[in-house]
């Protein structure tokens, strides 16, 4: 067989176009189908239920496919009794602003940690990584008091402060890994011409790692969008809530039996996260393997 010759000299493994042939391939196909079903069935169930009437969603023998598909659940989110549009806008505004702030604050720090020489460089790098691992809930009580005194409790600005700070450590480490990959030579010319560091960062380095900055922003966005504990504890007016907290707070009332409506709201909450996730999933491996991702 010609392939054995190639194998013995360590040529890259022959790329089988589809699943490997031979022993075990049938088992493998079945296992992959099971894995896909496990991963996708709950998401399918959410989508299918969101198009069911309240009655059908509550049926004792659940229907796999909506018998009478309806958009009523989504329409009710738009013009129902709850300010769902506000929830969505609150989530979108706080998450987007957080992503922008976090990247803006983290980029110079990452640049300094990557390029500058100062004595506290390593300790600060590690301290930032450890902050990342702190339990949010433990810091919640003092943070609550802090925002109370700053009159930022129950405001979107207060949420952005919390989200941004806890997004920073991750952003710093991720952006640092992107800056590390930019060859230092590209900065030399600008340095010889006497440009200050800030200008080198903004005009030379940042454009080179723009995709990295966008990826980082998307990660911070996802994390802010996902956060439940901050809005739940730091926002008290329902109209100012974000989607995750609103789902929890309104469930006891509105959606107690209305699973169709609940799943429509869940779908709306999921879509922005899914868009951000699939936009950056390619660079996720890079983030993971560089040790930059500190908590998913």
């Amino acid at each position: 067989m010609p392939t054995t010759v190639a194998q013995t000299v360590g040529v890259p493994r022959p790329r089988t176009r589809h699943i490997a042939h031979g022993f075990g391939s049938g088992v493998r196909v079945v296992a992959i189908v099971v894995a896909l079903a496990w991963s996708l069935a709950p998401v399918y169930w959410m989508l299918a239920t969101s198009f069911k009437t309240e009655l059908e969603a509550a049926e004792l023998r659940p229907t796999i496919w909506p018998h009478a598909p309806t958009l009523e659940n989504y329409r009710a989110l738009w013009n129902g009794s709850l300010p769902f549009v506000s929830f969505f806008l609150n989530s979108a505004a706080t998450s987007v602003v957080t992503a922008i702030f976090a990247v803006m604050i983290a980029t110079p720090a990452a640049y300094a940690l990557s390029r500058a020489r100062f004595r506290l460089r390593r300790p600060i790098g590690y301290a930032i990584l450890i902050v990342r691992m702190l339990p949010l809930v433990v810091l919640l009580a003092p943070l609550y008091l802090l925002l109370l005194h700053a009159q930022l409790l129950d405001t979107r600005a207060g949420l952005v402060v919390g989200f941004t700070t806890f997004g920073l450590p991750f952003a710093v480490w991720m952006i640092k890994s992107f800056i590390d990959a930019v060859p230092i030579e590209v900065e030399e010319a600008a340095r010889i011409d006497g440009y200050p560091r800030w200008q080198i960062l903004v005009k030379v380095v940042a454009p080179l790692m723009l995709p990295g900055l966008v990826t980082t922003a998307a990660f911070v966005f996802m994390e802010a969008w996902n956060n439940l504990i901050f809005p739940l504890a730091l926002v008290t007016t329902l109209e100012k809530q974000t989607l995750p907290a609103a789902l929890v707070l309104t469930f006891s009332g509105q959606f107690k039996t209305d699973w169709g409506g609940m799943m429509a709201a869940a779908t709306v909450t999921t879509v922005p996260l899914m868009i951000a996730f699939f936009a950056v999933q390619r660079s996720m491996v890079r983030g993971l393997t560089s040790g930059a991702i500190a908590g998913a």
Partner: protein
Amino acid sequence: MERVKWLDSMVMPTVAALALVVGYPIVSTIVLSTQDYNLVATEAARFVGADNYRKLVADPIFWQSLRNTALYTFGSVAISAALGLVFALLMERFVGRRGRVARLLLLTPWAVPFVVIAFLFRYMYLQNGGAINALLLSMGAIAAPISWLNVSTLAMPAVMVANIWAMTPFFFLLLGAALAGIPNEVIESARVDRASAFSMIFRIKLPLLRNALLIGGLLMIIANFNDFAKIWAMTQGGPGYSTTTLVVYVYRQAFENFSFGYASAVGVCWLLLLLAFAIAYLRALRLT
């Protein structure tokens, strides 16, 4: 001789933000933990020394939530890592367009918000009309529908299943990348030596995945220690205290009883525990 400065102006915004929003609360938590401070009580905070800590040692619910946290964290992480490894091995040679699409689809649970996962599984766990009961009944695995989240012995495993579903893509992606990074020479020479499929996985590949498993595992242990959204939105820690983890317990003490002092004492203990894992993580990073 050039003098090396201590700090760099460019890290100052980050350091300032962290000092204010994280550093101050840490110090404040430690201070609060020595006080009898109730936000809604009329009397002012007063210093009580180690009283909160004495109360904590004698508090059975604290110990139970510690056990629950350990079970939830280590159980979910171990099973997700195993599942993610199986997925990665299954997909290893599945290349081409269909392989790429299948890989993306396997990542889907990662893109679902935690709160949504919680409500989705809550709906599927329903005793009457829940998809999981319907499925198990039709397969003959159970005789009567079960109220998964309302039975104290079943609630924790049920919440863990949702958590495992959410976490598996992380390990799948991480281990898939690590598998792809194994040099072809290693695989080929094992193949030439006619290594069996079993020893190929357990003697050749697994040892080479050790670092990825270690780092990924520690990261997820830390993340799960702090997981709030899934448990809170599914069971709020119940029934009884059967799914109350440390996060849930601290949250209840602080934001339902408003006893910030006691909540802070629990928090400080937990900070110390977490620090041990954080240090282990940093060491693991340096090893690789």
